């Protein structure tokens, strides 16, 4: 595919992620930290986010599955996930975490399970979209274009 066409696809997709609320201004901050001296910065941080989130989601599942649920531990995990999603600009994941923490305060297991499902859903959505965005970037660079990030 031609570089120009790829660039257009990238820009269009990138804009839609912001319009649909998947990403916020913080993601733009990440992009601004990427340059010729650090060309893989966004990929690196996003990959760390994926690893970290998957670990936390697993820990949350396990924690909610216990006989005696430790809500403080759950709150700590959600707090971490809220922090990392906020740091990369994954707005909908962050917002789902905020809602989750409110139910932790109420010590409501059923509600927490629902929240976990919500958070996981939002995470999988943004993961798919970020992977698609990064793949487009890769294709542009491979076709000889400059990274649009």
């Amino acid at each position, binding site marked *: 595919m031609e570089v120009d066409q790829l660039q257009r696809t990238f820009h269009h997709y990138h804009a839609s992620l912001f319009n649909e609320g998947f990403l916020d201004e*913080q993601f733009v*901050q*990440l992009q*601004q*930290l990427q340059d010729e001296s*650090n060309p893989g*910065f966004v990929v*690196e*941080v996003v990959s*760390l*986010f994926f690893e*970290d989130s998957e670990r936390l989601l697993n820990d949350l599942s396990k924690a909610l599955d216990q006989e005696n649920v430790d809500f403080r531990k759950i709150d700590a995990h959600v*707090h*971490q996930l*809220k*922090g*990392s999603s*906020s*740091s*990369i600009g994954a707005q909908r994941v962050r917002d789902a975490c905020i809602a989750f923490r409110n139910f932790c305060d109420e010590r409501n297991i059923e509600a927490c399970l629902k929240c976990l499902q919500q958070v996981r859903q939002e995470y999988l959505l943004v993961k798919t979209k970020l992977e698609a965005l990064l793949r487009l970037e890769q294709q542009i660079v491979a076709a000889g274009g400059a990274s649009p990030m």
Partner: protein
Amino acid sequence: MGGGVATETHQFHVLAVDDSIIDRKLIERLLKTSSYQVTAVDSGVKALEFLGLLDDVDVDNTDSNSHHHKVEVNLIITDYCMPAITGYDLLRKIKESKLFKDIPVVIMSSENVPSRINSCMEQGAEEFFLKPVQQSDVNKLRPHLMRGRKSSQNHKRKPVEECLSPDRTRTRYNNHDLEL
């Protein structure tokens, strides 16, 4: 230039402390874009260890001729919410340390809690940044670093103060009286 100031021409060295790997990557990159040298650690314990302030290796209480070599750090930026030792605990330990009490400390937090901010500032933190930390926040660090450097230059001149002209008093070089 006068003796003992060779290290003054080096880059500023910032110690960054955060248990989140993502936030550590971010703050490291932000600091490096400002051309600071960065050491990033994932806990308050590791920060104290790096500074030589952990109980079994207490540089504060070793005499000046000991083989313990004081590490050169110009600023410490730490997350507030960390397991084991919080950023606040770390701030207190640094301010209680003979060697490091004059090093500027900055706190970062994802939560905007006024009482938390107040207690950190009262404990001697220079700044309190809300996460996610921005380039504009990191730009605020420079004056603190410059002031710290001037202060350490003056401490190095102390042994030769008898050579200074009689109308220069020590208080003019006090941290708080410096005009930038």
